[in-house]
């Protein structure tokens, strides 16, 4: 049963990585400032907690700039990435982003009572990629680790994978994408994602 908890905790992971694009802030400092800012905003604003649209706006402003969705999609596609045309790649990235944001932002508000611990960063200054380790602490349960794989880009550090309790988001979607593509090709996967996102819109 614990696995459900892990899947659900991924929602916090998304809340954590929000934040304005600080040009050259260290990756761990970035995660922390963004996480605290977003969680504090959610905690202090009842109307954000109750209004998915306002929550969406907050995340759009603070969270999304800190993700590299293009790379996330590419990693989730694995070797299928090169089978897709540049247009398909663009469309896939957009749909995948929509799916992730809608899925996890909705559940975020339920996590406002948890606290986050930030572990010391183990990295050399010249590293281009680092893993920022955090854990979510809720009184009475075992802490759930959340790790962010981050890369240094000209626009600052950006997350390209989130690993919750050892479950990598990208790896998990890779199998799903693989199956969909095997059954109905890249276009089939695109259609599947689009249909799913449309259904989510209506809710």
């Amino acid at each position: 049963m614990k696995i459900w908890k892990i899947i659900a905790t991924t929602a916090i992971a998304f809340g954590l990585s929000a934040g304005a694009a600080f040009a050259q802030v260290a990756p761990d400092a970035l995660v922390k400032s963004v996480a605290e800012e977003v969680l504090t905003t959610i905690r202090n604003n009842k109307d954000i907690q109750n209004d998915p649209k306002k929550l969406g706006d907050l995340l759009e402003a603070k969270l999304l700039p800190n993700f590299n969705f293009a790379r996330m999609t590419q990693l989730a596609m694995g070797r299928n990435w090169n089978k897709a045309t540049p247009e398909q790649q663009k469309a896939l990235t957009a749909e995948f982003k929509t799916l992730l944001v809608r899925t996890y932002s909705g559940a975020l508000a339920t996590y406002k009572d948890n606290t986050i611990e930030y572990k010391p960063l183990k990295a050399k200054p010249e590293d281009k990629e680092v893993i920022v380790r955090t854990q979510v602490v809720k009184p009475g349960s075992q802490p759930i680790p959340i790790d962010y794989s981050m890369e240094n880009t000209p626009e600052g550090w950006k997350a390209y994978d989130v690993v919750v309790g050892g479950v990598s988001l990208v790896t998990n979607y890779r199998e799903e994408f693989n199956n969909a593509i095997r059954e109905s090709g890249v276009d089939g996967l695109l259609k599947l994602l689009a249909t799913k996102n449309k259904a989510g819109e209506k809710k």
Partner: protein
Amino acid sequence: MKRLTAALAVAVLGGALGGCASAPTAVDPLEPMNRAVFKFNDAADRAVLKPVAEGYTKVVPDVARTGVSNFFGNIGDLITVVNSLLQGKKEKAGDSLGRVLVNSSFGILGLFDFASAGGIEKHDEDFGQTLGHWGVGTGPYLVLPLLGPSTVRDSVGRLVDGQADPVAQMSHVPTRNVTQGVRVIDTRAQLLGTEGLLDQAALDKYTFVRGAYLQRRKNLVYDGKPPEDEEEPTAPAEVPTAAPANAPANK
């Protein structure tokens, strides 16, 4: 329920442990059966377990529910003591034993979690992990009726852990059944409000949960440091991850 699990595990065991080094494609040879059980569990959850858990959270006050969760958490700590010892992890065994002692006494049979308040870390070791620690492969993926995702190895682990579980060993059968029932409701109640998430996130719920479960268990067996790429032979194909440094991540 337990007997059913046992029967199932034993039935599959023969073929399973024999060739346990599972190639990624071979990890779920029982997929058709598993999918059927998954569907059944889903329906059972909607029809029975979820409504009951909702009623439970409505009727029972917060404090009491925390006490219930702590009580079962304390039993979990006891099982962690045994399995940490079996894996030679002295520090975890020590922490967990400390937790059990503190919470069982000052915490009144585990109803209060003073150990967490006092900063003794909670760990999670079970016999499935112990087997994994000593090199036993997972065997095929298995969805257990009502219990959910597992593998042959972890199902065996569950049975063995049951031997160390004071609740499962209660001699008064009605008390035991009620206690087990409360445990199931407690677990489910902690997850209320999250079920829509899976519906939203997954393209195919079954594969999504399977992937997450297998990754999670592997991570636990290696205490958070699993060897890389062992399960992803296709990984080299994606090496040209030409880090899209200039890719406009989003606009």
